[in-house]
Structure formats: structure tokens, C-alpha cells
């Protein structure tokens, strides 16, 4: 019996995209801190500019250090290619701009990062792109919301901050029946806990600032393409299937096939919008990727201990985590994310907004800041920060209460985390 013995994800996290430097022997990925790259001759220059040959021209479009990061994320996500960009928001923007222009429509989950909700609901309409928001559990709602001008279905693997799990295979099927792709924000799961492209999604993006980096020192984003969506058969994506004057009439689907989307995103998206990833950033994020499998296992382990502690604490009113059997998506989470649903979840503290304020201010180990997925444990009050732009109705729609606290459980000794949470909860309800 023969079998294909591909390198496994834990190995790819350390090696994918890089070989020891052939000139210097450097084992670590070198930081190619250069804006531009010398051409061999005039014909080589012209060939690079015309996409006749592969290689680097200018670091806004591609860079060797960034390319290692891109290939490594593509490998971990099981994608045909990836594009590193300056932030998760840049990833979202470039993906959308690659797929559609004014008149385009998106069907998106209501359970989204506040910044995503902001871009879709408030900013993109100024440019003629509108979004219909649907509860992630309302599968029929997704199907009914798709219109002739819909070009994308969008959701998060694990919703923010309520922990809703998107049924990716079901939503992918709905999108594909309408000949449109499904794009997933996989930031909260990371490719260690879920690989949406293997579940039917067509595009994945990350805020690499979060778990992928894990250290909280670099802002970055990445888009990954599955290579399987039939752009030509869909007939709805002229940016990928019709001649593009930006490269003398190139037809991306015809020439690049499984790389059509990511090639257009690179050669138009970062070329024109400019939101590229810096090589130094890619280097930082690569340090994170190397230990991502180990860190995610510890994140999940610690989160489960914290959830168990909070569940029995009288100061806690409700915990929204798919790790718990009473969460509506518990079974789905176990099926789609069998290694765990991550370490970001929210809970309501008794006493509402004021008790929440006291709780956050008494914490000593948890840092109060606007980030998640850090090695250090973090806390925030979504209603007044990450989701502050939402009105009361939208907050309710997104399942965000006035007293909701969001935790991102880090890698500290769990006993220290439980001590910190315990003392802060006691102080919060005592006053």
C-alpha cells in the first residue's frame, strides 16, 4: 500500500516556504529589508513587470521575507496561495475590492468583529458596495439574502464576541449554489484549530496580528485562496475572467487558474491600494507561526480551565463559549473544531456595566486593551470599545450585552489566571 506522505502541519509551521539561504547558510528566514530588487537585464525587467516570469520587483508588491510568510500560511490553511498585507482590515478590503466594485453586494454574518461590521455597514456603502447581515444560525436567511448582484458570503469561524460557530459546510453549499464564494475570517481559530478551505470555504483571511503572531508586536493580515472556486463558470467576476488593461488585457482565470484570485489581489490590490506587509512584520509573524501549534494547544487548555472556573463563580451570570454544552453551537464546534474552539470568549458579570468596569480595573494579570490572541491574557468591554460604533439594536443583534466582558486567555500558568479572575470578581460584586 503506497501513500502520499506530505509534511504535516506542525512541520510546515516551521519549514514551509523557506530553505536555508543558499549564499550565507542562514537558517532563520532573513529579513530582506529592501524596497526593490536589481534586474538582471532590461529583458528580465520587462518580463517581471509583464508577469512573464516569477520574482520580485518592489516590496509593495512582493518581498522574499513576506513570501515565506505567505507560503507558510497558505500551507497551513491548505490554500493554493496567499497574500500578506498590512493588517486584517487590509486583507478584508483587498479581498472585497478584488471581487467586486460599485453595485456589488455581500451577505455577511451578524457575528463579526466590530471593525469588519464597520467597514461593511458604514464605509463600503459610500463606495457602492452594500451588505445584508444575517444571524449565523439562520441558514435559510443566508440563502434568501443572496441577490443577483451578490458577490460574496462572509462569516467568521468563531464569532466575535459571542462565540457563534459558523456552519461552514452548510453556508459554503448555499454560496456555491448561487455561484458565489464563501470567505471566512479564521482569525479566532487559526489554521491549527480549523482550516475552513477544507470545509468548503473558498477564501480565508486573518488578522495575523492575533494568534498567528501571538506576541503582540506586529500588525499584519493575510488572504488565502483555495484554488478551487470556478470563477469562469460563475460568470459573476469580470475582474478575474475578463481582460484587464492593467496588464495588457490579462485574463487571470485563463492564465493563472487556481491562483486567479490571489494573483489579481497582488498585482492590482497591493499594487494600487498599497497596503503591503513590511518584511520586518513578516519576520515577526514568522516567529509566531513557528510555535503556533504549541501555543494554540495551550491557549485551549488554559481557556477551558478559566471557563470551568467562571462557570462555578456566583458573580458570573452567563458565559458565551462554544466549549460549554449549553452553548447553542457546542456540538457544531466539536465537529468543525475538534481540537477546541479557541481561547476567546465572553461572559456577563452580575451588576451590568458598572460591575464590569470594576472587574476590568481590578485585574492584575489580564491586560485591558484592544487585541486578542496574544500570549498574554487580555480583557475588554466590547460594548464601549470594539463594538462601540453599533447602536443598541445592532448590539443586541450581535448578542452583545452592556455588561459583557470578553477574555482572550493567554499562556500564563492557569493557577495565576484563576487567582487574578477570582480577586477581580470578588471586588466587582462587593461594591
Amino acid at each position, binding site marked *: *500500500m*503506497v*501513500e*502520499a*506522505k*506530505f*509534511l504535516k502541519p506542525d512541520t*510546515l509551521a516551521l*519549514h*514551509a*516556504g*523557506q*530553505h536555508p539561504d543558499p549564499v550565507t547558510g542562514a537558517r532563520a528566514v532573513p529579513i530582506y529589508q529592501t524596497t526593490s530588487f536589481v534586474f538582471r537585464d532590461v529583458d528580465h525587467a*520587462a*518580463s517581471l513587470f*509583464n*508577469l*512573464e*516570469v*516569477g*520574482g*520580485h520587483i518592489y516590496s509593495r508588491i*512582493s*518581498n*522574499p521575507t*513576506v*513570501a515565506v510568510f*505567505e*507560503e*507558510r500560511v*497558505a*500551507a497551513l490553511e*491548505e*490554500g*493554493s*496561495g*496567499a*497574500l*500578506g498585507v498590512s493588517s486584517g482590515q487590509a486583507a478584508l478590503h483587498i479581498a472585497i475590492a478584488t471581487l467586486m466594485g460599485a453595485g456589488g453586494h455581500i451577505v455577511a454574518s451578524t457575528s463579526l468583529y466590530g471593525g469588519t461590521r464597520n467597514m461593511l455597514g458604514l464605509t463600503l456603502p459610500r463606495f457602492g458596495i452594500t451588505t445584508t447581515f444575517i444571524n449565523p444560525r439562520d441558514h435559510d436567511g443566508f440563502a434568501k439574502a443572496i441577490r443577483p448582484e451578490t458577490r460574496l458570503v462572509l462569516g467568521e469561524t468563531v464569532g466575535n464576541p459571542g462565540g457563534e460557530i459558523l456552519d461552514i459546510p452548510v453556508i459554503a453549499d448555499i454560496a456555491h449554489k448561487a455561484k458565489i464564494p464563501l470567505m471566512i475570517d479564521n482569525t479566532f481559530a487559526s489554521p491549527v484549530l480549523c482550516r475552513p478551505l477544507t470545509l468548503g470555504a473558498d477564501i480565508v483571511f486573518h488578522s495575523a496580528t492575533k494568534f498567528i503572531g501571538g506576541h503582540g508586536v506586529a500588525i499584519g493580515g493575510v488572504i488565502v485562496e*483555495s*484554488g*478551487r472556486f*470556478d470563477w*469562469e463558470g460563475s460568470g459573476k467576476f469580470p475582474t478575474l475572467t475578463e481582460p484587464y488593461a492593467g*496588464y*495588457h*488585457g*490579462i*485574463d487571470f482565470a*485563463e*492564465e*493563472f*487558474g*487556481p*491562483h486567479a484570485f*490571489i494573483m489579481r489581489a*497582488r498585482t492590482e490590490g497591493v499594487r494600487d491600494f498599497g497596503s503591503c506587509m513590511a518584511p520586518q512584520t513578516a519576520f515577526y509573524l514568522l516567529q509566531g507561526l513557528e510555535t503556533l501549534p504549541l501555543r494554540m494547544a495551550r491557549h485551549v487548555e488554559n481557556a477551558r480551565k478559566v471557563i470551568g472556573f467562571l462557570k462555578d463563580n456566583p458573580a458570573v451570570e452567563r458565559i458565551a463559549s462554544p466549549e460549554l454544552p449549553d452553548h447553542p453551537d457546542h456540538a457544531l464546534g466539536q465537529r468543525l473544531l475538534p481540537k477546541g474552539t479557541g481561547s476567546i470568549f465572553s461572559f456577563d458579570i452580575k451588576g451590568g456595566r458598572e460591575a464590569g468596569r470594576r472587574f476590568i480595573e481590578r485585574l492584575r494579570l489580564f491586560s485591558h486593551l484592544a487585541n486578542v490572541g496574544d500570549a498574554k491574557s487580555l480583557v475588554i468591554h466590547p460594548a464601549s470599545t470594539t463594538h462601540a460604533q453599533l447602536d443598541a439594536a445592532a448590539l443586541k443583534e450581535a448578542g452583545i450585552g452592556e455588561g459583557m466582558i470578553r477574555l482572550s486567555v493567554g499562556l500564563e500558568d492557569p493557577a495565576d489566571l484563576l487567582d487574578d479572575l477570582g480577586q477581580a470578581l470578588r471586588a466587582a460584586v462587593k461594591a
Partner: protein
Amino acid sequence: MKLTVNGHAVSATTGGTDFDPAKPAVIFLHGAGFDRTAWRLQTRWFAHHGRGVLAVDFPAHGWSDGPALDSIAAMADWTAALIEVAGLKQAALVGHSMGALVAVETAARFPDKVRALGLCGVAAEMPVHPEMLESAKANTLKVQELMTFWGMGNALHKGGMVSPGLWLRRESLAVLSGNRPGVIHNDLAACNVYKDALARAAAIKCPTVLVLGDGDLMTPAAKAKPLAAAIAGACTVVISNSGHFMIVERPDETLEALKSGV
């Protein structure tokens, strides 16, 4: 570009320029289960350097219609018909793997239609592992995984693509998974039973270059030696650190090897 061969629509990419039959033509023929897009880092260069380029999808592959052709001989007949339909008297044929066998067969049987040959990832015979054939017949994933695993050179299993950000393993699996049921088996079976390459080679009179990978497990470079020896005047370029997919693994070296010949 769309052409019609034997009553069926054929899809071809022209490398980013309008196809001009007055220019020296180069026709690219893909390998088993793959399509025109495998040639993306050769077609655009040739098209922008004075050649008329057609990187075709064989029938039932990629965007081409029609039933799959069930033998290398039938594919050669089809290629000869394609040359005529494209308004060409002659073309250089550049083939990869199965496409290389088709190029050999076409050049031998239709010598007036072929002005040069580029044979990438080729061997005198291409026996296919029985488990691959079995899986292909059953339309299971295993054949796609084995074609990908054995097709990639050792180095590329860790990546390092020339084109930034692309991941070859998934590219290969994505293209292979897009085939209609039976197509991969059709191709592999055609390669498996084809034993005529050496006999046909003696009839080849056009300039020929063989482009081989030193780490090719599917068509090891050593297995191409008899074929190279049987083609008068053929030259051989062995690319280091390359597997069977040299056209995407080592596209620059492949292009350099082909430039002078075709």
C-alpha cells in the same frame, strides 16, 4: 481563445497577446489531469517574444469540451488537427509528461507539422503505479495525492516557489480535483500502455530538447536517456533540485532550456 477541433470547443491561453498565426507558433501540451495553467511561467514569455502561443486544454480538461481522448495516438491526431485549425503550417510542440509523449507521437507521424520539440518530464515509457490506476478508476482522492506527492521534487515539499506566495501542493490538488470523473484514469491509462516512444523517436527530424528534473520520481532523468539517444541531435537539460513539475518548480530554468530550441 476558443477553437473548434473535431466538433468540440477547445480552450487555449495565448500568453497575453492576440494569437497571430503568422508568427512562429509554440503549442503547449499539458500532463495527465492538468491543464493549460501549468504553463503560465513559459507562455507569457514566448508570447511577448515573437511567438504565437497556444497553451491548450486537451479535450475534457480545463475549459475544453468533448470526451477525453483515450490514447496517446488519438491525442497526437487531435494535436495535428489543432495545428490545422489554428491556421498553422507548423508549430513547435512543448509537452509535459503525457503531453511530451503526445508531442513525440505527433512529431513522428506528422513531421511536416512540427518544427521543434520541447519535452519536459519525459521518459521512454511511463508506467503508472497500479494503486494510482486503481484509485483513478475509482475516482478516489488517493490518485490526486500520489500524483502530487510524487510529482513534486523533494525541495518543493517545503515550498519555495519562484512566484511569491504560491503553494504548489494545493495548486496541484486543486487542479486535479477539478477533473470530471474518469478523466485522470483515462490519461494515466493512456500513458501506462504507450510503448511506442522509442520507435517513434527514430522518425523525429526536428530540433529537440529534453528538459528533465534530477529529482523526478515520475519520469526519472535516467529513464529519458534512451529516448534522447534515439532522437537525432536531441539535447538534454537536467535541472537540479527539481521534480516532475519542473515547469512550475523551476520555471526559469525550464524557460531557459526551451528558449533556444523552440
